[in-house]
């Protein structure tokens, strides 16, 4: 089996910055905040966050904040809860949460909760259980979870649970590994994992592993490196990760590397991108691959970052 080409991946992530003529970066403009989160978290797991100028990143992040308190995917765009979480996570990576006007960000997130407990993604009202997780995580990082109606938020997430033990984007929606991650994460962060039938969900999740060792997102779909994160983190949160074959999954992720130019793709021999590079590295971290920082499955941030935030809360209390 090959090894993780860590140095090449660091170079690849840093090089995404320098590319000027690639269409991928054009269509990524509006979600640059997500790109920053993926790239920077991957760098941190690889122990190389210090190769980036923190002040520059922080000032760019803050320039994406809207007067409503929410963050946009880039300067001059509209705020969305997706980018607000990425912004808070990036600031957390650099230990710069103190630059935030916490009340303002909190107001923005709180304002997106609907009567039924669900969350909209922005003022246009799209509802999705992903946004419940994002809102709950965002407020957890800011120690403001008590500002929303947690009970209703939990009830909405639980209403997205299906008979196969999984979760969909709205009540009745098909179970999907990405949505399951969000719903399990939301329940984990609110101390509500008792709503999950762990054995049933754990079995559904471990059935996602296919012969190649990779994980898929739904029955009969192709495996994809990103599910190494969505499925694995969910299995860890419900304490069932030993049900999959870890060695085979490690091999699958390593087979998706571009060992020449760095980066990780969705499946072996496909084109690499920052998104899959992050999920591959984060997945390996969850699999306790050597020399990687541990990542927290619910916070989707390195464990030392999460501990720092938790400690602050204790000291504040």
């Amino acid at each position, binding site marked *: 089996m090959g090894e993780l080409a860590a140095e090449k991946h660091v170079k690849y992530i840093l090089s995404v910055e320098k590319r000027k003529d690639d269409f991928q970066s054009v269509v990524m403009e509006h979600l640059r905040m997500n790109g920053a989160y993926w790239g920077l978290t991957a760098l941190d797991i690889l122990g190389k966050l210090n190769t980036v100028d923190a002040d520059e990143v922080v000032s760019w992040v803050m320039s994406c904040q809207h007067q409503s308190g929410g963050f946009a995917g880039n300067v001059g765009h509209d705020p969305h809860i997706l980018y607000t979480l990425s912004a808070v996570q990036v600031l957390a990576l650099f230990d710069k949460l103190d630059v935030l006007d916490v009340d303002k960000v909190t107001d923005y997130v709180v304002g997106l909760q609907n009567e039924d407990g669900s969350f909209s993604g922005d003022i246009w009202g799209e509802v999705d259980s992903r946004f419940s997780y994002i809102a709950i995580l965002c407020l957890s990082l800011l120690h403001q979870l008590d500002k929303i109606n947690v009970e209703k938020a939990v009830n909405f997430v639980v209403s997205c649970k299906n008979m196969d033990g999984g979760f969909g984007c709205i009540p*009745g929606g098909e179970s999907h590994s990405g949505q399951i991650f969000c719903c399990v994460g939301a329940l984990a962060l609110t101390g509500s994992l008792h709503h999950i039938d762990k054995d049933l969900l754990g079995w559904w999740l471990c059935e996602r592993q296919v012969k190649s060792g990779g994980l898929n997102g739904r029955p009969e779909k192709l495996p994809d490196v990103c599910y190494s994160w969505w499925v694995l983190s969910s299995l860890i949160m419900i304490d069932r990760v030993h049900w999959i074959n870890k060695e085979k999954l490690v091999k699958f992720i390593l087979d998706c590397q571009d060992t020449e130019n760095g980066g990780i793709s969705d499946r072996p021999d496909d084109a690499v991108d920052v998104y899959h590079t992050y999920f591959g590295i984060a997945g390996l971290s969850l699999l306790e691959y050597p020399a990687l920082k541990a990542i927290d499955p619910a916070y989707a941030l390195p464990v030392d970052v999460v501990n720092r935030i938790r400690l602050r809360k204790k000291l504040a209390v």
Partner: protein
Amino acid sequence: MDSDDRIPLSERPEWSDVTPLPQDDGPNPIVAIAYKEDFAEVMNYFRAVYRADERSPRSLDLTAEAIAINPGNYTVWHFRRLILEALNVNLHDELNFLDDIAESNTKNYQIWHHRRWVAQKLGTDASRKEIEFTKNILSLDSKNYHAWSHRQWVLQALGGWEDELDYCHELLEEDVFNNSAWNQRYFVITRSPLLGGLKARRESEVSYTVEAILAHPENESSWRYLRGLYSGDTHSWITAPQVSSVCLKVLSGKRNFVFALSTLMNLLCHGFQPSQELRDAVDALRTPDDSPTDPDLANTVCLILERVDPIRVNYWLWKKSKLPQ
């Protein structure tokens, strides 16, 4: 769009009064964005009219151009909705506009969200069209998550349940492994106001599912659907003759029996009393390498599963450890 035929905005008279506004990426962008020229120009003009909040027909056209280049930009969509409202545009035309771009962008959140916004404004009038539209998208990709979400929303918000069960059947005829179609079937059975609910439909659904299982016993989706039909009613689950008999049939066939074994395992864990026939069928699946016959059927089932489904061996070992000794 063929870029050779495109006239730059800077050369069009109707845009001569607008000064384009370039993207401000800050001093030294961390994930620097490279722009193709056309895209950059359209976005520069877009930023200008957006900044000026100009809700005009030409702004509406400009958003269409920007969307054609990058349909993922949610700020463009957002502004387009503001313009549609301000100009009181015929929203049926807007649905047609969306039809044109939808097929090449079937996994774009913004387009689906915009579509829902339009359909919601049109109300029940839009139901038939939306049911047809999602059917078209699903004919290209029968597992498209966005299309299914939209369709479920349409059914619940605007109606149109009449043919939905037939539609599920149609899709399952095409591909019985389509988990999305099984999920939709469950959605219809449990939520359609026309069918009387899960309990009323259980018997016929069980027969339907048993037939599907016997045709393809390796199908994870049909087995899960079967279990779902007894959701919250364990007593019926372990006593239903159809359930144990489908297990027996598949096990006796000696092929593709993993899900039959795991279902049997589930039944046994809930107190199911197996017949001698079932015991014999399981016994016949043992190989000479397996340890001697265990009086506890569940132990034997686990042993076989460990061998035939090695990637999940830890799961089956755990299952075994949970059995009452």
